[in-house]
């Protein structure tokens, strides 16, 4: 059966991100010949890729292929060994540029702060006026469904709720580029599907460019506008597949035929790389 998207929901209360500093139409992110090596170990690249503004791009690849390295390098947490990354026309070189938000796989909520204080952390450090902090935090809490837990500590929340706190903390900074490194990896399947829907919602409301790294072929195929399939280490893009989904999609498109064809295609490309990666693990004695 073909997929028909649900009716467009009424616009929510989240503000769209500030207009990007690059002219509209120009790519948000450009990778040119980017590689990353750790000593003799060539971990990533060369990567050549352009990301459109307000695009949802997901990266899927076998274990250890360098997906997280790519995200580190894009986010300015690591510098590329060679090549160049441009974010909104400016070089990213080992420093985190303004306008980027990152959500990690591990729980990164600060255990000693309440949910409220966690979310407002970045704003407080940047010296935003208290009134504005309160408003932004309040809106983010409502958007992420955390209203009942605003005064709770992360240790009192489930894994899924804690990830929501981390996402909310990123949200309030109004990033124009959101990087997510297997954010739902530690969650169960059902929670993953729901969180995926919420991520789509967030993406639509804010108009940010989103890069999602994932192990899950289904997740990549369901959420993204384009899926980048990465090879085994050193990771390079073997293929970048346009999904063609409408903007107002949700997890129920998994029932459609197009979804099945898409995931089969991704797996066909990925399967050999995964086998190779597994063999590499065995021979290196891991």
């Amino acid at each position: 059966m073909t997929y028909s998207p649900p009716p467009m929901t009424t616009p929510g209360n989240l503000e769209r991100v500030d207009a990007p500093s690059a002219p509209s139409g120009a790519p948000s992110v450009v990778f040119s010949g980017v590689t990353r090596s750790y000593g003799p170990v060539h971990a990533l690249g060369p990567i050549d890729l352009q990301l459109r503004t307000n695009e949802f791009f997901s990266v899927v690849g076998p274990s250890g292929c360098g997906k997280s390295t790519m995200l580190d390098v894009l986010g300015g947490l690591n510098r590329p060994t060679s090549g160049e990354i441009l974010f909104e026309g400016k070089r990213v070189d080992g420093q985190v540029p303004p306008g980027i938000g990152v959500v990690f796989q591990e729980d990164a909520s600060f255990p000693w702060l309440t949910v409220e204080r966690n979310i407002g952390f970045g704003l407080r450090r940047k010296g935003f006026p208290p009134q504005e902090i309160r408003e932004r935090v309040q809106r983010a809490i409502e958007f992420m469904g955390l209203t009942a837990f605003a005064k709770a500590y992360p240790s009192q929340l489930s894994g899924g709720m804690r990830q929501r706190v981390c996402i909310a903390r990123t949200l309030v900074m109004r990033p124009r580029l959101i990087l997510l490194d297997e954010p739902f990896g530690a969650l169960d399947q059902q929670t993953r599907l729901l969180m995926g829907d919420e991520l789509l919602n967030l993406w639509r409301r804010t108009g940010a460019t989103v890069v999602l790294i994932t192990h899950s072929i289904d997740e990549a195929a369901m959420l993204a506008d384009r899926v980048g399939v990465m090879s085994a280490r050193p990771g390079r893009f073997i293929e970048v597949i346009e999904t063609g989904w409408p903007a107002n999609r949700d997890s129920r498109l998994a029932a459609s035929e197009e979804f099945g064809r898409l995931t089969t295609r991704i797996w066909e490309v990925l399967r050999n790389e995964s086998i190779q990666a597994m063999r590499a693990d065995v021979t290196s004695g891991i």
Partner: protein
Amino acid sequence: MTRASAIRLWTIVAIIIALELVCRMHWVRPGLIVAPSVMVVEMVRLMGTAAFWSSVWTSTRSFLIAFVLAMIAGCVIGLVLHAFPRVRSTVEPLISSWYALPFFVVYPLLIVLFGMNEKPIILIGFLYAVMAVIIGVLNGLDRIPAVLTRTGRTLRINSIQQAWFVSLPAAAPYVFTGAKLAFGYAITGVLGSEFILANAGYGYDIAFAYNNFADKTMYALLLFLLVAVALITIGLERASRAVEHRSGASRVSDVQKPVTVASRLAASLIITAVLLSAWQITHFVVGQEALASPGVTLQRLVPLLSGEEFWTHVRETFLALGFSLLLSCVLGAILGALVGMSATATAAVTPVIVTLYALPKIALYPVVLLFFGVSFAAKVVFGAMYGFIPMMLIVINAIQSMNPALRKTARVMCLSQVQTLGTVVLPAMVPEVVTGIRVSFSITFLGVMIGEMFGSPRGLGYVLMRSITINDTATIMGVTVLVGIFAVVINSSLVALDNAAHHA
């Protein structure tokens, strides 16, 4: 009230009543122990005297100074060591052997250096406590989850903000644990020193009461100490639990420390060289009478070691240590196993044991002497008292935290209780028992040494105390060094054994 607390409460009440009965019926020779009611009456009477509070204040003052100094020095040293990993790995053997050293052995030396006043006492308390703080700070800084630091970077905060808003709160729980330990160590160090040799203070009062056959007073003082320590321990536990939910789950250390035999050897040599130099320099500063130089000490050691008398003392100490260790490990393991098999028993018994452990056991030595007299048995029992509690706690914990799947498997295979114990529980416990032996060794050794320093006619501890009365600083240094080397060598071997057992 939970079932466990109820059991605990009624057991304690029953023991008190039994004790009262035993004393009133004269089933025990009077003079050995005093009825609880008499203890309480005497304690209340003492609390009405000014002299009592003066002693309490003397000891409290010493302990507070030791504790505060330990916190300050410990935090600074911990921060520096963390910032310079090379220095840290060089000092590592000292850190891991620190609590293997029987500190009170150094006490006579400090008296010689500083005189018989509160300074050596504070110093012992400080030495005992400071390492706990250093370890706590290092642990805390090691265990800051990398993801939190990375989050700070993605939020573009600067390094000062990173240190103050991320590193510090993330490390705090471990530093707090170190502080709690340091608190206990400072109290123990101060009271223990006052007990062994002093002219004022709470520990001195206990020793004085014992020496003058004032049993009522002695037991009353011990009771007050027990109650005070119990209240403080409970208070600290409550405080910890209140902020526990803010501390985050216990995390694995992110620091990988590559350790080769060669590097450890090099580190030990460097430490030895530094200590010897410090010793020589101190000797130059304070003179021969106060502190013999390494050279003179070595000269003095040679005839000492070749004399028959010395080895008699060494044999005595070793024998006492051996029996003590056997007693504490076997007793601790058996009791630990029995209690650990039941969750209710564990919940009921553990808080009592932890509180007893916090009590400066040195204060209980007079009780041991009352029952056993000045004898070999007294030393052995005293050492065992020190060592059996950690063994018991470790075994209880090992059984309680054993992978439940193992016991379920035994049930599915329809094994009897005995079979389960023999084939599943005991083998699973072996690595933890080895850890228990390692921990017990240092503590038991300390107990035996203290026992010998106070009222024993033989043994290395006796030799130490005798040397102080004749101001034989060379022998003091010699014996101190020997004891230190012995403790460190045995401890290192047990650590290696412990690591091997855990990797098997």
